[in-house]
């Protein structure tokens, strides 16, 4: 959590190009074990693109992503997830046709020991494993506070609870490093406030968090450290208080607002 904590993930000189557009330019930063690090920046700054590159959904045009001394470049998203780097999506992403409970069961995939042959033979240990998973699913739903909704279709949950379910699915996947892409967008103020507390409980579980978020109250309340990205380049890195006072950061956000005004 402090400067002395070992680095869990390091992004080194990473650039992401979409045709002629340089979405992320030589990005370099570290996520330290145990911290909550926020990545902020105006719309289009390249935050989601950075997430996609770290988690294998797109390949950076140059640069390295190293997790616990292991290069992630070139690995598939599911392989990266199995190493303990799990992400959520900016646009709500659920298994819409399934219940909340079943959504989390899918999330528990890695924690299950069932093999295809054992399943088809109907071995008793498969049943035991299922019962274990069901208990774990209830625990995770309870952790984010939507256990009473377990049997409801995911698609019919209120929006704020859908966002909590997404976090539950990611937590079920047993992350060491959890990347959350705008988790509170769509939540009401009360839900946002309690989510700040949820993040600190996630940290207490020994999970390191990298958070992308526009909601400044959430960022300031939840983070140990904040990085600000603008037009693909990191312009500031510091404590929440320092970032709030940083001139470049203020300018980046004001610039965005004035450009919006022009539209």
């Amino acid at each position, binding site marked *: 959590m402090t400067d002395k904590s070992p680095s869990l993930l390091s992004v080194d000189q990473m650039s992401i190009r979409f045709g002629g557009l340089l979405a992320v330019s030589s990005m370099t930063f570290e996520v330290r074990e145990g911290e909550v690090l926020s990545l902020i920046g105006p719309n289009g700054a390249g935050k989601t693109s950075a997430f996609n590159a770290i*988690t294998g*959904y797109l390949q950076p045009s140059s640069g390295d992503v190293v997790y616990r001394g292991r290069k992630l470049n070139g690995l*598939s*998203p*599911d*392989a990266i*997830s*199995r190493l303990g780097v*799990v*992400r*959520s*999506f900016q646009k709500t*992403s*659920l*298994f*819409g*046709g*399934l*219940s909340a409970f*079943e959504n989390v*069961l*899918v*999330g528990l*995939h*890695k924690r*299950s020991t*069932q093999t*295809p042959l054992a*399943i*088809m033979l*109907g071995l008793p240990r*498969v049943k035991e*494993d*299922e019962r274990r*998973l069901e208990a774990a699913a209830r625990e995770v739903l309870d952790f984010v506070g939507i256990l009473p909704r377990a*049997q*409801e*279709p995911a698609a019919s949950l209120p929006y704020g609870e859908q966002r909590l379910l997404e976090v539950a*699915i*990611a937590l*079920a*996947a047993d992350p060491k490093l959890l990347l959350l892409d705008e988790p509170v967008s769509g939540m009401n103020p009360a839900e946002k406030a309690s989510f700040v507390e949820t993040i600190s409980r996630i940290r207490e579980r020994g999970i390191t968090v990298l958070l992308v978020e526009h909601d400044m109250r959430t960022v300031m309340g939840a983070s140990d450290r904040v990085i600000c990205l603008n037009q693909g380049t990191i312009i500031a890195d510091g404590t929440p208080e320092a970032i709030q006072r940083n001139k470049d950061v203020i300018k980046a956000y004001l610039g965005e607002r004035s450009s919006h005004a022009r539209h």
Partner: protein
Amino acid sequence: MMKYFPQAFLGLLVSVPFWLTDSYMLHILITTGIFIIAAMSLNLLLGYTGQLSLGHVAFFGIGAYGSALTSLGFEITLPGGIPLGVSPKPVWFAMLVGIVAAGFTGWAIGKLAFRVRGAYFVIVSISFAEVVRLVAVNWVELTQGPMALNNIPVLRLGWGSAEVAFLRKPAFYWLVLAVGTVCYIIISRLVSSRAGRAMIALRENEPLAMSVGVDVTRYLVLATIVSAAMAGSAGALYTHYIRIVDPDIFLFVYTVTMVIMVVTGGKGTLAGPIVGGVIFGLIPELLRTMAIKPEVQWIIYGVVMVLVVYFLPMGIVPALRNWRGGQQASSTAAASGPQMEGAGK
């Protein structure tokens, strides 16, 4: 009450040959049963992983040819003049060979199609079926081409006086029922397990499935292997029942029949292919026995199909389940809602 419905239904099916003595009706039930097995296997891919295999009949045909050739024996000359001969093998063994051959082909297709989804999966599977059909037509030395493999032996199990020959219709009916039951049990176990959830996750939201560590390709390949092996078992049953097999077994229309059974019955449900299979397997035959002209038969078939698809787009089984769920909503709210697997549990 619904809990024991599958068992009760199975009991009813077992009893059929005791009271249905009409040999032609039993014949229809046998062929329909074989197609239902094929439809169940297709449902594992189409209903659970969400991938449409429009070449599914290839697995059926490979099971049929594989079993027929192994039971008849053959002698061919491989390229380079190397002779390869296989002496006739017992039918039970031949059927296993057919099933394994189909499963192996499923594995190959699953691997080949490992990055293709949706429309591309459809194209790969169709092309594959066409290639296999052309092989069956042209490799005359092995398959007799359009002249067909004839006199395919009958399945015999047991020894001496305890030997059962699956020659008479009731015996064959029970054999089909047994194979179908095994397939049903395997599918129901799969879809309510970690493996089945991975397949459903692929259907529902592939990027999200990957984010939680599901190796989607692995489970797509698993589904293809199991599905192909089951389709192969249906083909093997078919070939030792009809006792003649020609390249027409690969006709596209058979795949279409399977798809119709799955879609109308309700894809992604355990009971769907059975319900759809019973309706669309029996309708043509029943119309025929009513001595209706063939054109009219097909028109009725088509109209029924369009009506089902139009009014029950999700299929008959999900519609029934919703209706039942609506009825019970006041008493037991917990039982309804979405389910990963069918009503059969």
